[in-house]
């Protein structure tokens, strides 16, 4: 048993580090370091840099423009990106819809959609959840009725992350009302510019409209946009959901944030002439998080090792989701606590690039409450942590 990288892997790690140091744009690095929100253009610009390097899609097979990396190389790449603060590409195109198109799409669909996803020419969003179909996704009601060579779509999707930027949406729609609920669902790609689509932003607790409700009113979608067979969408989506759940542990990001936490503790006066880093209770709680992070990292490495010998991602992804998100939330709590009164102002606009007023200092502490609020989402989406526990009960414990 060993967890060492080979010399090739170490060389690769070095290559990634050098690439990030030279190619991740300084203005974006500055924004990331100062909690300024990246704009759509920022994200696309960075993704195009990755694309130019040939590193846009580490998880794709080489034939579609993927890197052909091993699981370990992919792990190294994601780790270095996270440690450096370089954002992962927006997952909806690259990690969510593309694998489904590759597995179940027609040759024509592959040629039509994949190159633009790879090159970040088209922004995708995920249209699964509905107001009344959240955890129980299979109960979704948005309907698609065949009419000649079109589907006519009616209903509404909700919680579409960054749907306001999207060119296309991939949807689960109901094509058969009579079958068992999982068996009447189809997978449909819809151009957001199609007449009859309205996007209504939903403002979250941090003041940013991160998600949207998308309404479909007699939206005519060419039947050629159906993926695979009608009424098989649920099976396809389940494959996608496993992809969504890998890499959800967020180890690199949490490592980076743990360092930031330690720095913040050192910089924060305790009001009695010392700093919060001198406080034994704070030290102990930070140590606990660090240990949890190590256990999480090794859990991830173990599941990586299993993947490398060809095993499919199994219920261990539920462990990674639960622990990864709950650890991230514990860190949010600690940031908030250390920030004290600096976290009280609610000035979300100061985290936008175009903000021109005087920013309330000192930097990250002002964002602490907003991040704490926003990251409550981590245990809700991507299969809530209750649903993950249900999966462990059923799939592992046989309960």
């Amino acid at each position, binding site marked *: 048993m060993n967890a060492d990288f080979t010399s090739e892997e170490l060389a690769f790690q070095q290559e990634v580090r050098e690439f990030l140091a030279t190619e991740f744009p300084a203005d974006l690095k500055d924004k990331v370091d100062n909690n300024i929100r990246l704009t759509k253009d920022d994200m696309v610009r960075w993704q195009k840099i990755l694309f130019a390097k040939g590193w846009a899609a580490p998880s794709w097979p080489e034939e579609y423009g993927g890197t052909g990396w091993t699981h370990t190389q992919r792990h190294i790449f994601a780790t270095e990106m996270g440690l450096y603060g370089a954002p992962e590409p927006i997952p909806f195109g690259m990690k969510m819809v593309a694998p489904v198109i590759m597995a179940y799409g027609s040759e024509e669909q592959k040629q039509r959609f994949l190159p633009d996803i790879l090159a970040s020419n088209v922004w995708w969003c995920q249209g699964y959840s509905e107001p009344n179909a959240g955890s129980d996704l299979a109960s979704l009601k948005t309907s698609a009725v065949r009419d000649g060579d079109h589907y006519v779509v009616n209903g509404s999707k909700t919680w579409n992350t960054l749907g306001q930027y999207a060119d296309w949406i991939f949807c689960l729609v109901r094509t058969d009302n009579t079958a068992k609920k999982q068996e009447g669902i189809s997978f449909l790609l819809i151009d957001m510019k199609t007449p009859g689509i309205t996007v209504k932003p939903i403002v979250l607790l941090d003041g940013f409209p991160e998600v949207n409700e998308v309404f479909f009113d007699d939206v005519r979608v060419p039947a050629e946009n159906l993926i695979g067979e009608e009424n098989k969408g649920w099976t396809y989506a389940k494959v996608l959901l496993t992809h969504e759940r890998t890499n959800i542990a967020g180890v690199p990001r949490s490592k980076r944030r743990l360092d930031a936490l330690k720095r913040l503790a050192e910089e924060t006066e305790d009001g009695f002439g010392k700093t919060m880093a001198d406080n034994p209770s704070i030290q102990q709680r930070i140590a606990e998080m660090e240990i949890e992070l190590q256990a999480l990292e090794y859990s991830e490495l173990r599941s990586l090792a299993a993947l490398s010998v060809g095993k499919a991602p199994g219920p261990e992804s539920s462990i990674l989701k639960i622990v990864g998100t709950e650890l991230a939330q514990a860190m949010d709590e600690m940031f908030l606590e250390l920030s004290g009164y600096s976290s009280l102002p609610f000035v979300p606009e100061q985290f936008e690039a175009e903000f021109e007023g005087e920013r309330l200092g000192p930097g990250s502490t002002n964002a602490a409450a907003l991040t704490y*609020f926003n990251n409550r989402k981590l245990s809700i989406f991507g299969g809530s942590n209750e649903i993950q526990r249900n999966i462990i009960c059923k799939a592992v414990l046989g309960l």
Partner: protein
Amino acid sequence: MDFSYTEVQQMLQDQVQKFVHKSYDFDSRNSIVASEKGFSAEHWQLFAELGWLAVPFTEEDGGLGGSAVDLMVIMEEFGKANLVEPYLATAVLSGCLVAQLAEGETKEALLGGIIGGESQFACAYAEPGSRFNLASVTSSATTSGDQVTINGNKTAVENAPNADKLVVIARESGDRFASSGISAFLVDAGTEGISMRSYATVDGKRAAEVSFNNVVVPVNARLGAAGEALPALRVAVDRATLAVSAEAVGALEALLQKTVEYSKTRKQFGTPIGSFQALQHRMADMFVQCQMARSIVIMAAMSLDSADSAQQKTRAVSAAKSRVGKAIKLVGQEAIQIHGGIGMTEELDVGHLFKRVTALDLLFGDEEFHLQRFASL
């Protein structure tokens, strides 16, 4: 032993509940939060008429008696409604300082202004590096002849943008952490040399970073004796701490009640989510936390009203604040979690209550601070 409310307390509770029912639903609150001042002057007048602004003060001072239990009753109801009017800043924190330190006609006029609803106050005490230590004061006050010059920066001063008068804590002598040498000054908010960076807080109130740049006031602006304001500040902040703990109890209760309600109506997998035992136990835990929080706040309020020593009272307040802080995290986070996505939005009152309790956890010292203060006393 008697845990029942007096007639006055019962009446206060009924009054606030009626007011909230009639005039303070979620939409009305939202429009108040979005308004220029961020509070309703009309409501404030009503508070004065109903005598609510007199609750924190003794009869001698023209108040309703000033019992901590009364204050607890009213704050709890405010907490349920997620009220944004600056009751705490004006009537509790500043009011309690003025009541202790001011004298004679000045006192009468100032308290009269608060109780009558005519004046808005803010207490500028915390500083960027002071965290929760009230004795850590770097803002300076230098006397020369019959004038005092104040310099320094104050942080998160609640209600400062709307205040007519500021109670400013500044140091006249001693090093940064010395208990003596700290004075309180009454300063008109419009005085030259005061600048404010105003903002809304995460829980929908108004506050400001306030800086004092050679602000000159007459010596009689000093409240109480020179250099001896700290004990009064401690008492006032303890009382305000009790008040926000009680407010949190109300807000947590509202979070619990709304979550339970929601779990009965929200259906997934063909059944109300409240029927899942995984969630039932969590709501039972929320209930337990709410009850523990309520109990400890009652304990602390009774202590403040008793003949306990100053140290016992402070210890009781810290016990309450730290225990409530623990409840805040659990109940607040579970309320959002059990609501799912809808709990994450500005569209539902639950998210706003969550933000309120998060801010209350911080105010006047968080769970950790009060735990350590409790242990040290």
